[in-house]
């Protein structure tokens, strides 16, 4: 699939924003976060800013952005519509949380309820995002049980790494939270590696033989294209990434997106005196690494329509 930057940025930024909102919603009433209005405002602004920037980026991708509101109507059948509805609904408790905890500094009942509802909304929205991809039977690399857990884990992981950096910047970090974040990163690594092993080892069901039905005659291969120039289908769904580039980019995303944040966060737990710089480094590294990871999620996805344009397997 063509890796459109607007969608890559949207899913990564919004996922990270919802991960951060989830943690803020749960942790705000507990008193585990730094007792500072500056921290609360910056953390909430970062979370809501990432979510909002992501949602706006997703609208750039539309052919008719001025009609985007219509996407809220078909939640009965469409995961994209459900995601839109969930994202809009999540703003409501999130704004109450911003007011009661961020502005008024309360850790009382309003913050507790708004925080819990924000956390639920964040989880539901990210599940919907993952399901948009996981529900597409046409793309083997998306239509599997690894995709939704990966979307959830990666959102939570980026949110946790961002939150940890902010907590250390405001002098409110703790080795316990560093350890928790390290464990979240480790669990996410397992999920992502599991996904990569799955797409490497499990072939798609569809073949040129099933796509054309000519398998009844024998092995089928593409002979002639319907047209001399690339069309929409090839430009949008015919993207193919070379093996060499795929390997290099996976290494890059493993190092920047998982390795550096894991080591840096573990180091913060072991050596609190360097915790602030290393957790900030982890946050910067994970942002770049996860954009590469998400680029690969699209670039490595092979649509069945490629079988009509010369692909022998998808």
């Amino acid at each position, binding site marked *: *699939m063509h890796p459109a930057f607007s969608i890559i940025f949207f899913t990564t930024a919004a996922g990270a924003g919802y991960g951060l909102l989830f943690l803020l919603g749960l942790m705000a009433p507990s008193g585990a976060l730094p007792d500072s209005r500056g921290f609360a405002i910056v953390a909430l602004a970062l979370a809501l800013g990432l979510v909002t920037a992501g949602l706006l980026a997703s609208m750039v*991708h*539309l*052919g*008719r*952005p001025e*009609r*985007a509101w*219509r*996407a*809220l*109507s*078909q939640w*009965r*059948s*469409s*995961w*994209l*519509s459900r995601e*839109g509805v969930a994202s809009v609904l999540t703003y409501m408790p999130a704004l109450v949380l911003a007011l009661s905890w961020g502005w008024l500094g309360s850790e009382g009942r309003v913050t507790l309820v708004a925080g819990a509802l924000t956390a639920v909304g964040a989880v539901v929205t990210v599940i919907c995002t993952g399901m*948009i991809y996981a*529900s*597409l*039977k*046409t*793309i083997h690399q998306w239509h599997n049980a690894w995709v939704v857990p990966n979307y959830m884990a990666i959102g939570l992981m980026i949110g946790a790494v961002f939150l940890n950096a902010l907590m250390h910047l405001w002098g409110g970090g703790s080795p316990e939270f560093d350890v928790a974040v390290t464990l979240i990163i480790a669990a996410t690594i397992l999920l992502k590696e599991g996904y990569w092993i799955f797409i490497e080892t499990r072939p798609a*069901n*569809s073949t*040129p*033989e*099933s*796509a*054309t*039905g*000519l*398998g*009844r*005659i*024998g*092995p*089928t*291969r*593409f*002979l*002639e*294209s*319907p*047209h001399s*120039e*690339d*069309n*929409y*289908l090839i430009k*949008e*769904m015919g993207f193919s990434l070379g093996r060499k580039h795929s390997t290099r980019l996976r290494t890059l995303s493993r190092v920047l997106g998982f390795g550096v944040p894991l080591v840096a966060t573990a180091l913060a737990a072991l050596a609190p005196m360097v915790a602030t710089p290393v957790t900030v480094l982890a946050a910067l590294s994970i942002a770049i690494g996860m954009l590469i990871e998400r680029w690969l999620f699209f670039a490595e996805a092979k*649509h*069945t*329509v490629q079988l*009509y*344009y010369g692909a022998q397997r998808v």
Partner: protein
Amino acid sequence: MTSLPTPTANAKKLGLVIDLDLCVGCHACAVACKEWNSGGHMAPLTDLEPYGRDPDGVWFNRIHTFEAGADDQHLGCGTSRTTHFPKSCLHCETPECVTVCPTGASYKRAEDGIVLVNEDLCIGCKLCSWACPYGAREFDSDVGVMKKCTLCIDRIYNKNLEEVDRVPACVMVCPVSARHFGDLGDPNSNVSTLVRERDGYDLMPEMGYKPVNKYLPPRPKKVMPVAIEGGRRELEVSNDNALLNWVDRLLSR
């Protein structure tokens, strides 16, 4: 409404039956489709830079060519089948291009099963084209909405046309009658009979979209493998001719 209509018994399922045994790959159906639909229900069928360096445009029907049966065990000519393969929307019974649509623009008609796009509701998110395994939908980047085959809805019900012309443009134009139009929900229709007699099949049945359009396989052919003689024939140049010798040396460098 992007939920699918509830299936009823005896419901009409209008669609095409495409005979791969007859198709000669002339692209007339694609051209007739483009011509009619440039002014039809989903018009315009935008072309960008049609005479420029990088022409691009929306087509509802495209003709691919495949070779089937060319395996290593049957080296030589005459064993494989070259098959021209026209492909357009299959108007599936359970099309996910409809259910994924977030706005209600994409819909399947209850009365005849035709899958259409309401261009006034489409936001151009392209998700329906991602959900279609067959590549039936093409995005019109000029208008910013998705476009697709309408089964020539503006021909088949068009009272201004002679009854014989109330078929999709691709069916009307086919010079070898490789395309048939009819009601696949009626077991006694011409198209259902063809599917039964010729062992018509679905494309990618594993997707579970239940395409209405069916394909008739190429008829079995007696295979007579013809061995190809090995080795290239070299141009033999006489040693006596100095000029040819010189040309030979020049070309052999």
